[in-house]
């Protein structure tokens, strides 16, 4: 059975992307691979900052990094459990995976291992200029992914903008 991969991470979670994933797998009768990436770039950046600007030693930065990663992992397990429960209720075949490392590399590795045919990911609202200047992991994923990627723009709950899903 061919597979659709839904990617979640601490900074990329939008209920609409989960809805879209279930709608797609049910319509096309495929199975779902739900992935939560524990993005170590964030924790590395923060612990580096503690050492560079805070002048605190490795012990403090390591404790901080571990606390961040452990929280992300707990959050990932919870979110994947919710997806898994929903799949069971809907009768959808679903596998869950927690990846730890660089968001793009881990996403591509898991996609390749599971031979997925479509990827669904969400991202926060930002201008294209900001993405160009500061970089965008989702843009990198779009460029490097061997299969189509659907991006759900993360419209905030506050402004109630519509989901803008597009296929790349």
């Amino acid at each position, binding site marked *: 059975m061919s597979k659709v991969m839904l990617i979640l991470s601490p900074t990329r979670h939008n209920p609409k992307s989960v809805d879209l994933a279930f709608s797609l797998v049910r319509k096309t009768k495929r199975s779902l691979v739900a992935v939560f990436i524990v993005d170590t770039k964030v*924790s590395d950046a*923060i612990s*580096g900052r503690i050492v560079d600007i805070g*002048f605190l*030693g490795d*012990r*403090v930065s390591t404790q901080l990094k571990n606390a961040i990663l452990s*929280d992300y992992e707990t959050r990932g397990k919870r979110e994947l459990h919710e997806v898994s429960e929903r799949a069971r209720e809907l009768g959808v075949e679903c596998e869950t995976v927690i990846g730890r490392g660089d968001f793009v590399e881990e996403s591509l590795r898991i996609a390749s291992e599971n031979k997925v045919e479509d990827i669904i990911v969400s991202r926060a609202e930002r201008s294209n200029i900001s993405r160009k200047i500061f970089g965008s992991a989702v843009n990198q994923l779009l460029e490097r992914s061997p299969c189509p990627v659907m991006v759900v723009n993360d419209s905030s*709950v506050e402004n109630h903008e519509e989901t803008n899903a597009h296929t790349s």
Partner: protein
Amino acid sequence: MPKVKTPFLILAVIVTLIILLSPAPAGLSREGQAALAVFAICFILWTTGALPLSVTSLLAIALLPLFGALDAGQAFALFGNRAVFFILGAFILAAAMMSSGLSARVALFFLKRFEKSPKRLLSGIILSCAFMAMWMPAHAVAALMFPIVLEIASALKLEPRFSNYGKAIFLCMAWGCVIGGVATLLGGARNPLAIALLREKYNLAIGFTGWMYAVFPIPLVLVLAVHLFIFRFFAPEIDNVKPARELIESKVRDLGPMSVTEKKVLVIMLGTIGAWIGLGDRVGLAPIGILGASTLFVVQALTWSDVERYVNWGVILMYGGAIALAAALEITGAAKWIVTYVLGFVELSPFVLISFVALISIALTEAMSNAAVVALVLPIAFELGDSVPGVSPIIMVFSVALPAGLAFSLPIGTPPNAIAYSARYHRIRDSVKVGVLLNLTAIGVFLLVARFYWPRIGIY
């Protein structure tokens, strides 16, 4: 491995070469021009973070004699400034508090007294962070409190990014640390750095008690303002914090009774603070700090490997280099030249000058290290102050060092903000929305204090 931002390095080199190779402008000596070139390179590297802060400082020490701004003996001698040793003593004392577990006990002691309701728990987080950041570096307090706050958020099942209470607890942690850090000379190393620059130029000093006495209204009002804004903009959506209470109580139980090492550290810490308050003006802050730190080893409350695990020695390079750069700007006349020839067309009243300097400092600190703000802005602020009758250099110290410590809006501003943001319970727009109001409140309170309180206590 920290990322090196090559384009910024190239920019720094180009700007430095342009300054160095241009003909010396009217009124500026060759030495002053060389100091200005080092100032430019440090400004670019500290602002962009293209190199680690301490490496930029080290570079300044090497470039000052190399470009001919100072002779090598003079530049390296500034490394031995007493402020550097005061900061070192303070970091070692903080290391003892962390390694013995005393700091975690104090944090939980506070939280336990404020665990009854959601609003009281927020107050507990603000007050415990602010109190602890008065006695140890604010960054260390944030790093210590972060895992506890994360566990509280998890126990309360708060939804990251959507829960108001989730946003509030992390912002309260960061802002409590920021506010406490300005209250004493221990909360942020920028404060002793500013005093060191004051002593280098004017041979004046501000004591441990003198600092607290002069600034105490500011943290007091800001703590109230944080309560007001947090309750107004992030009204708790929960009415029960029982799981958090159980978590805190279980952590307190796990700590057990106070260990002998904790007791030793507590006694030495209290003794050192007492000596700073009682003897600091006569003996000096640095010898007391170093003596306190040494005593920890004598009573076997701390080992050298503990210190190495908790202190990054870049602190010495950072502050030694910053002092050397600031002194070079003053000695070579570069700071005076900037004020006379670059800013000379502006005529300012004392109050407008103080407001101007404070605004520049608070704006810069949102984008760069607060110690770097002090090192770059204070030498120029001193010259500005000298050019306006009725402004004392002590006022200039407060006008730069206090706003430089009050970064509320952006994660990049200061490590407590960055640490809080890493939990991803709030978005940048959440911290900016209320952080800007806190920045404005901070400036307002600072100006009221400068206008009405300081003249009453003899600071003009």
